[in-house]
């Protein structure tokens, strides 16, 4: 395979459908400390036994009430009159509130204003909360809200991106990133192509829906138990709507039943409403959204409509490109500015664009406000350039993999992005080469071409797509974290940090970090809820940054205590610092050995503080948005996937037959957890691009509003042959926590290999001469239409 750079092979460690030997092997190999071992998830034993407590599983508080909200029936309308008398007298109802009853702020927009906690005279999407009730049971609350009589004056609704663009209806101003003169480069290139793609949104479908309980405290404050990725923001917004100081609100977040970005900003409204009702009734209030309400009232991954014009040479190397990404933000800004920015940042994916102009429009539509979702706009941005790769390949008659390799960022040159960050430590060429070989790409390509010749109904396709994903919040101040570590006199350790556990194994990894510092057994490190009174002013657990940020903060806290212990040992036993060692749950001081527990007791008696906070902020990052220049990302996480699919040209049905993934996670803190993240992310990414279809009708009503009509991948959709490997011996060259790399989001985008493989199968109908347009999600219906147009085009 030709590439513009030198390629070496990489070492890998694998888990696949047929074996897990590699994980087994390393379970017991590495020292006690904890980093690098496949420790089981901290809650695994409780989860399998049904003993892990989620918010809705908490014992009911004395007098607990249940909330529900009345929802808008129109996508855009003024509220003319509201008759809530039947609601107030409904069975079980104790309180009914509207925005008039909010003592403090009525706007709970997380970054920019625009999200009224309850509608303010006007509604902007179907499902928008207008009023709230507290009732004696969940069922009665839900029944009561249906009794409202609301009169609306309908206003014109904007329900498509096209309409929003025509009307310049934006939630935030457009923004452009630019390097060189793309116009001229495109014109001067040997070939030009242009195209457009519709990229669908995605429902988070965390298995545990949104839920919060608010409990009034004795001094006019509120305790909140919530399923949220951002407890500090919940704390701030609850304080603001109640008009009380932040120190009177305590937020406790033990675990989420999945988050995926959907509980970053959009867990807060339900906590705020529960708090408002609790404040009025002076009783605890739980607000749990039913699945349908959750799907209707919470934002999703932004749908996008993107287009491009590219110029390239006869080899297929890009000379210049113009890309426009248009996001459907829904009715309010929420996080859409940063999400659309990230789509723009990732419009290059792994490829050097040379002369490039990337513009992003943030369209305002009368739908629910779309929000963070694993990848945060990055995936939608990457779709355009991956489409370009396939289109160039078909145009000049080459294998798309060859075009992808040719256009990868270089090492010494061709290594500056369209936002002027230099791509350093780039290993994608090696990674792809290694994967192409381990997955037998070339031979399978041959077999598939043969299969397609002899099979009239079924066709196969294969594709390899890479991912390069920028790690850091692009909003600089969020790149900070805190932690709190205590050692008790029996040598057990307690740990709190600013991150939240949503299944990703964050608590387990951070416990491993602390265990590593003290060289003790991970099981002696206990972690409890993320609490705003333990670690304050935290950032959301998002942007794949949980371990990077909180791991470093916890390490700092642990190191502080460790240093105190060393200083104390030196003084007490008259040894040099290098004579104090932490090994195997023991502390060796000169020629004496103490168990960790013993020494903790001795240190306590010696009046050593065994508790410390830790803090971390990411170095090196900066971005000047006005100029569109800087280094928004501390480093890039990379990976690639090869997927093989089979399609039915008569029905559009398909199946993913095999997927091979190679992901660079640096020096893995916990390989099993990392592999779990990769597998889960891939399947979720595949679902986004295949069967997960959001459908709004012409009135703006979400029709796919339950899991019966919105289909996430089920067990049979996982490829029968699924092989995931990690690059080994590849510590992050930036100084991240134990030189690991973030893993939460990057592999999500590997799902693109399935989409590209579907296109490959469809393209076979034209003998690989045409590049089908395949908007996403590529449902069987869309695949069938692409097949039909391919048949028509090759007649």
């Amino acid at each position: 395979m030709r590439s513009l750079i030198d390629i070496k092979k990489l070492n890998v460690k694998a888990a696949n459908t047929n074996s897990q030997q590699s994980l087994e092997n390393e379970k017991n190999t590495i020292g006690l400390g904890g980093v690098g071992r496949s420790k089981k998830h901290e809650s695994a034993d409780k989860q399998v036994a049904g003993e892990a407590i989620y918010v809705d599983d908490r014992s009911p508080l004395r007098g607990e009430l249940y909330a529900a909200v009345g929802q808008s029936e129109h996508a855009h309308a003024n509220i003319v009159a509201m008759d809530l008398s039947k609601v107030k007298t409904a069975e079980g109802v104790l309180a009914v509130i509207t925005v008039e009853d909010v003592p403090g702020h009525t706007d709970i927009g997380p970054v920019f204003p625009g999200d009224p906690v309850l509608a303010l005279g006007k509604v902007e999407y179907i499902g928008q909360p207008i009023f709230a009730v507290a009732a004696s049971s969940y069922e009665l609350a839900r029944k009561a809200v249906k009794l409202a009589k609301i009169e609306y004056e309908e206003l014109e609704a904007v329900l498509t991106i096209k309409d929003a663009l025509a009307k310049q209806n934006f939630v935030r101003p457009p923004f452009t990133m630019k390097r060189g003169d793309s116009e001229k480069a495109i014109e001067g290139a040997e070939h030009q192509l242009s195209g457009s793609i519709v990229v669908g949104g995605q429902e988070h479908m965390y298995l545990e829906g949104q839920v919060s309980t608010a409990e009034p405290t004795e001094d006019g404050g509120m305790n909140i138990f919530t399923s949220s990725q951002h407890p500090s923001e919940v704390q701030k917004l609850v304080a603001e709507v109640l008009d009380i100081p932040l120190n009177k609100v305590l937020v406790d977040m033990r675990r989420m039943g999945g988050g995926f970005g959907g509980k970053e900003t959009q867990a807060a409204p339900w906590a705020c409403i529960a708090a408002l009702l609790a404040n009025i009734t002076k009783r605890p209030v739980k607000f749990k959204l039913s699945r349908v309400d959750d799907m209707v009232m919470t934002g999703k991954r932004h749908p996008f409509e993107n287009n491009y014009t590219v110029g390239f040479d006869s080899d297929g190397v890009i000379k210049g490109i113009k890309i426009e990404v248009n996001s459907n933000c829904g009715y309010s800004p929420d996080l859409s500015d940063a999400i659309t920015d990230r789509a723009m940042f990732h419009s290059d994916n792994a490829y050097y664009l040379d002369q490039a102009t990337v513009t992003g429009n943030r369209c305002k539509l009368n739908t629910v406000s779309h929000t963070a979702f694993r990848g945060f706009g990055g995936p939608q941005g990457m779709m355009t350039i991956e489409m370009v790769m396939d289109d160039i390949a078909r145009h000049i008659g080459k294998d798309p993999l060859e075009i992808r390799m040719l256009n990868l960022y270089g090492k010494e040159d061709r290594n500056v992005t369209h936002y002027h960050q230099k791509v350093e430590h780039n290993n994608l060429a090696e990674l792809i080469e290694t994967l192409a070989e381990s997955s037998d790409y070339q031979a399978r390509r041959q077999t598939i071409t043969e299969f397609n010749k002899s099979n009239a109904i079924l066709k196969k396709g294969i594709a390899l797509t890479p991912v390069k994903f920028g790690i850091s919040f692009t909003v600089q101040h969020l790149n900070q974290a805190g932690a709190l570590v205590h050692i008790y006199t029996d040598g057990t350790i307690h740990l709190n940090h600013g991150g939240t556990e949503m299944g990703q194994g964050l608590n387990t990894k951070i416990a491993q970090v602390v265990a590593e510092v003290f060289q003790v057994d991970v099981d002696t490190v206990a972690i409890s809820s993320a609490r705003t009174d333990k670690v304050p002013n935290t950032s959301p657990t998002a942007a794949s940054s949980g371990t990077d940020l909180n791991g470093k903060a916890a390490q700092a806290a642990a190191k502080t205590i460790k240093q105190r212990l060393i200083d104390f040992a030196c003084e007490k036993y008259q040894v040099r610092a290098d004579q104090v060692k932490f090994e195997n749950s023991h502390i060796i001081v000169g020629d004496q050995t103490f168990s960790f527990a013993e020494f903790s007791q001795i240190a306590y008696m010696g009046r050593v503080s065994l508790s410390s906070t830790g803090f971390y902020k990411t170095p090196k990052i900066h971005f000047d948005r006005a100029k569109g220049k800087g280094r928004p990302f501390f480093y890039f996480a990379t990976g690639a996937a090869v997927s093989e699919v089979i399609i039915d040209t008569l029905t559009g049905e398909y199946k993913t037959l095999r997927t091979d993934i190679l992901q660079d996670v640096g020096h893995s803190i916990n390989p099993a957890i990392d592999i779990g993240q990769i597998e889960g992310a891939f399947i979720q990414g595949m679902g986004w691009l295949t069967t997960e279809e959001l459908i709004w009708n012409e009135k703006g009503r979400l029709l796919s509003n339950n899991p019966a009509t919105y289909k996430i991948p089920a067990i049979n959709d996982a490829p029968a042959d699924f092989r995931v490997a990690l690059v080994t011996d590849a510590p992050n060259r930036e100084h991240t926590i134990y030189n690991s790399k973030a893993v939460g989001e990057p592999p999500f985008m590997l799902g693109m290999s399935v989409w590209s493989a579907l296109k490959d199968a469809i393209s076979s109908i034209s003998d690989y001469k045409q590049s089908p347009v395949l908007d996403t999600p590529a449902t069987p219906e869309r695949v069938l239409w692409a097949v039909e147009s391919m048949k028509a085009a090759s007649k």
Partner: protein
Amino acid sequence: MKNSTVSFLLNNDVVTLDNLDPNLTVLQYLREIQFKTGSKEGCASGDCGACTVVVADLERNNPNRLHYKSINACITFVGNLHAKQLITVEHLKEGAKLHHAQQTIVDNHGSQCGFCTPGFVMSSFALHKHNKAPTRAQVLEALAGNLCRCTGYRSIIEAAITSSEHIEEDASALHYQKTVAELTTLKKLSSPILSGNGHKYVAPKNINELAYELVSEPKSTLVAGGTDLALSVTQNLATINQLVYVGNVEELTTIEETATEIIIGSATSYSQFIETLHHYYPDLGEMIERIGSKQIRNTGTLGGNIGNASPIGDMPPALIALGASITLHLNGVERTILVEDYFVDYKQTVLQASEFIKSVQIPKPSNGQTLKIYKISKRIDDDISAVLAAFFIEINNEPQEALKVANIRMAFGGMAGIPKRAKATENIIIGKVLTKEVVEQAKTALISDFQPMSDVRASDKYRMTVAQNLIEKCYLELKFAQESNVIETRVVNYA
């Protein structure tokens, strides 16, 4: 006869329900009344499996043995538990020791957020009760009704596939005889009644009791598995005044065969009749395996599938194509009509007040007859059909006349307000030798048979195009078979 109330085993304890609203689901009962919160609510509509629990019942043909099945607690009414054992995730652990179905998930790193996990544990538990060394295919079949948004499933598959052959007996096995004895006693109780909140649930034990119940309370609502009906309660917040459960009615829960027919009681579940139908009609068996999920097939019944009169139910088109008949019962009077004639208009049937479906009669195949079924949906498993096509074809046997169609019945679901035959299309095909040209004519004729709708599952255009293409696919499959050509034609089966 004095009626008893609803009694069952909750794990090992006999519980008796009293003064409880029968609209309550098993999940609500567990979480809100028993404070057993291990079973989770992910959807309350049967789609996610987070609420999966296991129900043990005496085997029909061998009442000394227990049969374990996974069900969705969220859409099962509490009354349906009568005389059964309900096993929940909290019950599996013995002291500090995890059950095999739990430990293997831990060992394989198969839980992340853990919200789906109790459901997977219970599905795997049920599977291993009857199959200690399941194949990958059996694992997938058993777990397809459990969604996981975190793991990507590989780790869970590996956990469930781990053999339990060498594992010691678990608690439920140790209590086996006691459980059998207790259930036997409960079964002997007279027909149970549950009332609360002004609502009532009755579970007659024989057809006369049932007929009587419906005549005396014509406004009663029949409930079988409840997989359809319970949604009106959990999703539409409806309240049902009187539920009449058919699952205990002796005459409705049998599967019989005569020389020419298979007779299926309306209250038998998919899991109970799938094997028989698969034997005679492999395509039908495969299609049934794609109805809902294991949990749905364990509770959903044939009578419920016809009774809900949905235009997208999967059994009616197959039954119509096969020329099956249905027996209806009203106060001691029975009538038998073609399944085809049961459906009148969208959600309208010939069923009269107080009448119920007793059984369905399916003709056995004779020489030259083939049933082809195609279920088209967005997702392969646990998805409602966009289009379901069932073609029952009779081909003349003489080799020179191969592919000459003596008779064909073509029925479709999802193409009209009711499951319906494509009569114009049939007329094109009957009597002809199938060729590409005939197929093209048939495709054109289909346009006069149906004007399908657009909805969340598919557009009208897709429905029509696919339905037309399925005629072509059927033709190609017949042709390949006749030429002894082994060419894969379906992705669903492709491995």
